[in-house]
């Protein structure tokens, strides 16, 4: 196994940054370059990249990460309400608080592994969700969701200016969080977090986490206490989720409990799997594909389908519409579920495995000894 050098990492990093930052340009022909969607790409990217640090490296399947996302969102909205509309304190508090919660939950749940761990995290997430809807309504505002109000204190903002007319909007030192500037803020944060995750992947710490995944017992016999490493990974990924939640609230200052439902955790698992568990780029690819198609598919309706099938004879078009219409619009989740099943059945390593397979086939004909070491390195894990 060749260890990637720092030079190599920086090279990958530069390409990644360039791709992310030019997204508004190259997404244009795909019809997906509007800011809302781009922000979603970046935010869910952070979420998935963080989740991958836990699931991809250690193999611990958590079904409770949406809880941290929710904690992050609520914290950020409270920071907007009480302190300032600047997102910096908001996301700092989100990260810290969700990290704290992750430490607490991780401390308890990491006593067990495998399916028990999944169910324990699920139980905690459900507790959070149920409490947010019931007793914690003074904090979470129950079903309505936590919103900004005109008469919020906003102590820090008041020091500098009077309360304006209407609801203030979030900003990052004057940079508005809506529109393209909002995307760029999210994108820069994504690049930073991606860089951190890359460093974790290639650090001794990351290698220890992989060792835990491949054989925890052996790891223990060689004298490592695995729990602190697992807990660190859990907290880091919890903080990533909190950061994503905070940013979600920053781009749209509203926090609702449905973000914490366990199916939301399922979504991030799906994104990670689709792209490729345990690979660096994989989760980002998964996010991009799912969010893109969600956007395309859920916008379609029967009329659009009729137009798409206009070239066919009428009877055939009607049949095709009848077949495909449950899959689009409201029924987008059906497509998602089917995709999920297909991926797990046929391509358990996700898209990255597919890419590697294609690469291998080509490299047989033209051997390339100096091909990208990073992708080669992850190949053995995705094969499982």
């Amino acid at each position, binding site marked *: 196994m060749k260890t990637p050098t720092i030079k190599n990492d920086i090279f990958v990093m530069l390409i990644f940054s360039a791709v992310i930052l030019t997204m508004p340009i190259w997404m244009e022909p795909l019809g997906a370059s509007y800011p809302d969607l781009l922000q979603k790409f970046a935010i869910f990217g952070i979420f998935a990249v963080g989740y991958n640090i836990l699931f991809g490296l250690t193999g611990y*399947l958590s079904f409770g990460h949406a809880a941290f996302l929710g904690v992050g969102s609520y914290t950020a909205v409270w920071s907007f309400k009480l302190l300032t509309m600047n997102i910096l304190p908001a996301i700092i508090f989100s990260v810290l608080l969700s990290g704290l919660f992750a430490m607490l939950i991780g401390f308890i749940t990491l006593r*067990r592994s495998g399916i*028990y761990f*999944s169910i324990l995290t699920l139980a*905690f997430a459900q507790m959070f969700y149920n409490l947010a809807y019931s007793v914690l309504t003074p904090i979470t505002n129950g079903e309505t969701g936590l919103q900004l109000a005109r008469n919020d204190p906003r102590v820090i903002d008041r020091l500098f200016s009077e309360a304006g007319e209407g609801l203030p909007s979030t900003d990052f030192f004057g940079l508005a969080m809506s529109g393209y500037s909002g995307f760029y803020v999210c994108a820069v944060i994504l690049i930073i977090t991606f860089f951190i995750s890359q460093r974790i992947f290639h650090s001794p710490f990351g290698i220890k986490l992989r060792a835990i995944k491949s054989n925890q017992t052996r790891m223990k016999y060689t004298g490592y206490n695995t729990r602190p490493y697992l807990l660190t990974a859990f907290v880091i990924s919890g903080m990533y989720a909190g950061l994503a939640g905070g940013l979600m609230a920053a781009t749209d200052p509203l926090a609702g409990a449905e973000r914490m439902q366990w199916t939301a955790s399922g979504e991030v698992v799906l994104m990670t799997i689709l792209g490729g568990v345990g690979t660096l780029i994989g989760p980002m690819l998964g996010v991009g594909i799912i969010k893109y198609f969600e956007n395309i598919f859920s916008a379609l309706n029967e009329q659009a389908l009729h137009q798409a099938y206009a070239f066919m004879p009428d009877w055939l078009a009607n049949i095709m519409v009848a077949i495909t219409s449950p899959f689009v619009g409201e*029924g987008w*989740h059906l497509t998602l579920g089917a995709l999920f*099943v297909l991926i797990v059945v046929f391509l358990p390593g996700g898209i990255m495995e597919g890419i590697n397979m294609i690469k291998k086939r080509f490299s047989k004909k033209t051997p390339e000894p100096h091909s990208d070491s990073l992708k080669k390195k992850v190949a053995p894990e995705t094969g499982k």
Partner: protein
Amino acid sequence: MDAIFLQLLNGLDKGGAYALIALGLTLVFGTLGVVNFAHGALFMLGAFCSVSFYKLLTISKQVKDESITFFDAFKEQPYLEIWFGDFGTAIIDFAVPLSILFAIPVMLLIGLIMERGLIRHFYKRTHAEQILVTFGLAIVLQELIKSFFGANPIPMPPPDIVSGSAPIGVLFGLSENVVYPWWRLIYLAFSGIVIAGVFAFLNMTTYGMVVRAGMMDRETVGLLGIDVERRFTVVFGLAAVVTGLAGVMYTPILPPDYHMGMDFLVLSFVVVVVGGMGSLGGAVAAGFLLGILQSFASMNEIKSIFPGIDQIIIYLVAVIILLVRPRGLLGREGVMED
């Protein structure tokens, strides 16, 4: 005293549902070693068996409404009523209990198809992959139901004679004010019967004995020349039927909608884990235990001391049990351990 008695009944009733669902889930866990996240969807499909049976019975044609004389009014009249008169009306009235007969073959078929088509290929895969594929399947099933039946809950009436409340207080020497819906009592009895049936099947028939042997040591049973795989397919079908029946009979209590399965899924997993993986008795005991705990936690007296306890009690108990007794209440050694 009256309140406590009623809560106990409530708890038993909820527990009956939990126990039935968890029984099916733990059968799949214990025999096949598959973590089935589509189990809640089976419960939901059972409930929708009842809905579709009802719809089937009430296929109607438009007839002239005789009761309105001053203009031509039309009303929908089910064919059954037209053909059989009052007997037809009675059949429609008993749609929910009768749909048990409809649900058993349907659920068995669904179970067999699921096992043969998908689950079978995942015996050797990791638990994480099993969870993921069944989770995807659950979404698919749920969305299919949604596109056929819509997103709104569909109320299903219980038969007329049992739609009222039973004066159960008198029976137990409590005040006459203690009444309890008939249908819930029926559900409790029904779940008892089904649970007893499953246990009888597994413990008293040769077929069941082989299945239990397979749960213990699959390889040896295979070496003895028994087609374990086929038995396991049947077990999966059985689990689907048990869960589906739980869903069928639950429809008058909770109007079914497409995501009811997901709501029950988490609960049933918690029940199985608390009871102990692979332990049928444990699942039943834990089902009733958690049901009773939950209904007592929702009493006002307790809620005023611990606000919100009714929302989290089940999960709290699960966390505590898993940490204190890692194998659950009655878990066997070596099942689902890593």
